[in-house]
């Protein structure tokens, strides 16, 4: 079992979800994050004091997939999330020892 984590632009979440659906992946978890990287933030001004906000909003997607599936799915995510501009984000894969579906107690690939 693999866990794919993707840090992407928030606007792309819906595109990625739709792309995954085509792969038959109909489960995923999203959360909010803020990223720091090459992409510049923006400035804000309040009563003459100016701040640079360096962290930009990102979405964090986690998808559990079967072993062997991960490369194709990473490619699908990368393709769907890409806008070609700086700040498109990162995708990474880690190995998972065990997965359980809470409702049924099913384990392993059946649990995803």
């Amino acid at each position: 079992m693999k866990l794919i984590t993707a840090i992407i632009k928030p606007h792309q979440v819906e595109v990625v979800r739709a792309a995954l659906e085509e792969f038959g992946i109909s489960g995923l978890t999203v959360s909010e994050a803020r990223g720091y990287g090459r992409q510049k933030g923006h400035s804000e001004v309040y009563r003459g004091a100016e701040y640079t906000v360096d962290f930009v909003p990102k979405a964090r997607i986690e998808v559990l997939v079967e072993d062997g599936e991960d490369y194709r799915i990473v490619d699908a995510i990368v393709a769907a999330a890409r806008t070609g501009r700086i700040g498109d984000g990162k995708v990474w894969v880690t190995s998972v020892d065990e997965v359980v579906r809470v409702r049924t107690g099913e384990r392993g690939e059946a649990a995803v």
Partner: protein
Amino acid sequence: METALDTGTTAWMLISASLVLLMTPALSLFYGGMVRTKSVLNMMMMSFGALGVVGVIYVLWGYSMSYGSTDILGVFASPFDHFALHGLLADAGGEWVINSLGYPEAVNVAFQATFAIITVALISGAIADRARFGTWLVFSALWVTLAYFPLAHMVWGGGLLSADGPIAKIATPIDFAGGTVVHINAGMAGLVLALIVGTRVGFGKVAMRPHNLPLVMLGAGLLWFGWFGFNAGSALAADGNAGLAWINTLVATSAGILGWLVTERIRSGHATSLGAASGIVAGLVAVTPAAGSISPLGAILLGLVAGGLCAVAVEWKFRLGYDDSLDVVGVHLVAGLWGTIAIGFLATGSGLFYGHGGAQLLAQVLAAAIALAFTAVITTVIGLALKYTMGWRISEEDERLGIDQIAHAESAYDISGTSGLIVGASDPSMIPVAPTPAGHPTLATTTAISTAANSTAADTPADPTREESRA
């Protein structure tokens, strides 16, 4: 001008003016809560901008163009009659000028000014999230001068649509508090601008749900409160007619809530809070022209229909494809027309339902049609002129990012998950710019705060490097 001062009337008009002034901030909440988080400040700023621009203009030439003595073709009055309120406040002997209704003319200026401001602010809902702020300010100045002051003159200032105008030969068109001057005017301008400015990125495709509904309901509550000044104040007296207008402003609005909620319950299965807030405004708009000439029963009917009608009308934009973002058309134009025309049926003294024939109805339809046409033409001219000079739209990329950041360099909220601590004493996401010798700005990341005067134009909306590499 020799009338004695009636302090009771004066008190009522002073507070009515204050109530109507409050409506523009209230509107900014009502509208602001309906847009997405990333553009609430800009939405509110369109109202506050109108407060700035129109407030000053009204005193300079607005009152004079609306109610000045030199009528020009029945369309407007000379801006020079009372420029900067010349001669209106005190007479030659230094005495306060009291008008024939027994209150100071100064108070009348106050009351009328607030109507001009809110009318301009209303339009902004049609072009949410995407309009350049500078263009909006210039539009406000031009539109109030070329569309609002003339229409106020025509209807209330003795012009074409008044008792002195040609339609009055059929019947004098009734517009108690601004069905034509305010709502048809703003609603039509909203439609024209929505078409000229164009749809938002993703309109009809992505979700654009209200970001803060309690703010919308607060706005609706304050609008209702202020509207008692708008309608009952339009009696221009503290008398029985003001009392009637007050009651009608209550029951038409109550009925507007019920009308909208029942309609949406039937059509989509739910009675929503946005529906209740919208029903309030629909009821208020519809009763605006009619408040002084219909019965409370008539007002209930008027409000029920207004709520139901507008609940349906707000869907048209999706079918027809114009992006009237916050339904200036679906609420203000539709309910404004309905209220104006319904007078032809419901006016107790001249309506069809009371056996008075169709003259009033015809007069109402004509007045509405002329107002519609007039505003459509003027707004089209101004809107297109601005489109090809200053430009209306921020860039698509900026619109996606959010106009608040781009146009105002601010974020509306910094409320962390639960406790506010994560963006606390040392906010991880916000690194103050280095202080620099004046004139030598830098963006180096250090720990002191720069004053804005030191910053460069590099941070302005047009900044082409914003998506560029830091490396």
